[in-house]
């Protein structure tokens, strides 16, 4: 599903963000990527969604080599990957429903189908009663659930969650992790970037540990070891 072959990312000021990464993630896996700040976790996510290009190496999503993806192809790639950010990245002037529907609208989905799918997804994340609220009218946990609904709505094969619980309390953190687990049970590959030791240890899934821009650990049922 996701393959990295000798991927490096070096910025113009000679800062090495990633060094010679080799990684293979199968479809349906739940993978936690852990590491201290500045070890390249977010850069890795940026490479996967083509926000950045690798300096060296090859990245494949499915059978698609995205190492040198053209700017016109980027929207198509992003429609196949659901992304969840720590700061939610919701459109502030759109309601819960509109934020979720937007991911389908950009893909040119029919309005009738949008009206069917969006309420279903909002039901899954437990927001069916708050469809007409704006992001500022929601708690942090609810905002993150909207972000997950938006990531989920076009049924992506991969969900990438970059520190999704970083701004949340322990109750909301547990809820978000449970939702991600539920999504994974449906067969979606989940990549979770996190600092949270408890989550990683509780999940008992594959853990990739990063340090100094390199992968230093890759365990099938790993724990947080930093």
């Amino acid at each position: 599903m996701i393959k990295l072959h000798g991927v490096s990312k070096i910025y113009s000021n000679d800062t090495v963000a990633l060094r010679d990464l080799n990684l293979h993630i199968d479809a349906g896996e739940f993978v936690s990527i852990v590491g201290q700040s500045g070890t390249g976790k977010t850069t890795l996510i940026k490479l996967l969604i083509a926000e950045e290009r690798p300096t060296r190496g090859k990245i494949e999503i499915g059978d698609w080599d995205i190492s040198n993806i053209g700017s016109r192809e980027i929207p198509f790639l992003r429609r196949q990957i659901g992304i969840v950010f720590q700061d939610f990245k919701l459109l502030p002037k759109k309601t819960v429903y509109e934020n979720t529907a937007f991911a389908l609208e950009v893909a040119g989905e029919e309005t009738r189908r949008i009206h069917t799918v969006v309420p279903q997804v909002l039901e899954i994340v437990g927001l069916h009663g708050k469809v007409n609220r704006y992001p500022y009218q929601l708690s942090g946990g609810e905002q993150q659930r909207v972000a997950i609904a938006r990531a989920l709505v076009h049924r992506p094969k991969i969900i990438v969650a970059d520190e999704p619980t970083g701004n949340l309390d322990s109750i909301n953190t547990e809820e978000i992790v449970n939702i991600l687990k539920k999504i994974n049970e449906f067969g979606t590959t989940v990549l979770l970037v996190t600092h949270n030791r408890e989550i990683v240890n509780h999940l008992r899934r594959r853990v990739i540990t990063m340090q100094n821009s390199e992968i230093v650990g890759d365990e099938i049922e790993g724990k947080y070891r930093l």
Partner: protein
Amino acid sequence: MFSIFRLFKFTFQDIARNFSLSFMTVFILILMLLSVNTLWSVDILTKEAVQVVKDQINVSLYFVSDANPKDVENIRKYVQMFPEVVDVTLRSKEEVLNSFEASYQINKDVLSALDELGNNPFGPTMIIKTKEPQDYKKVIDALNVPEYAGLIEARSFDNHESALDRLQNITNRVEGLGWGLAALFAFISFLIIFNTIRVAIYTHRTEISIKRLVGASSWFIRGPYILESIIFTIISIVVNFGLVFLALYYLDPYLAVVFPDGFTLTNYYKSHILLLFGLQTLAVLLLTVVSSLMAMRKQLKV
């Protein structure tokens, strides 16, 4: 893929949910257009005022009282042959006398002196109008030959010559100043509008980057902003012309006093509406759409 319905939906949602920003952009556009129209009107009024003064200037040739009508007629034909001459009016001896008597009706002394002469002391008068004031000199020079010396008793042009030079000088300066002001103003307006739209787009930068991250294509993002620019242009143009015509409605009665020949700015605007409307719409549209596209370019690089 990107339906027209969604384009309009997102555009109107954006306008309504960012109402204060939308209002401010339209407000600035209207101010700019009103200023342009004010400058334009001042230019038109200046030209019209100069034309009114030019129209009042003519050359009168006063013939001797015993001038042969055949010779006078020959001069008239000769003058009419000049391409610069637009009108030649010939008043006979009798018409000149009648006109004189009419204007001195209340001054009996003048009229009785005229009676004492026993005959008509006036000769025919020829009134010549040319396209431009500077053309008079050419006509007068052409008539200033020995052949006509015994026929033409006097001419009125000499009295106007310096006034005409001054008028021409003022006209040229006003026109030059007008163009200078227009260019300066256009530049300032361009900077204001360009930056207003840049600020508007800048406030949307987070939104634009989020749209990119969830898979929106560049044109899906640009579309509503471009349509917004078109809508802002249409609203500002319509409101601007509404306000201009409202202002002219109150201004024209005052102009009627200055321009007795029936010139009104309302008539001018009505007769040039397509040119004015088209030019201003095109200019504002270019300005807003290009500003939007340029301002968005940086935000779309996510």
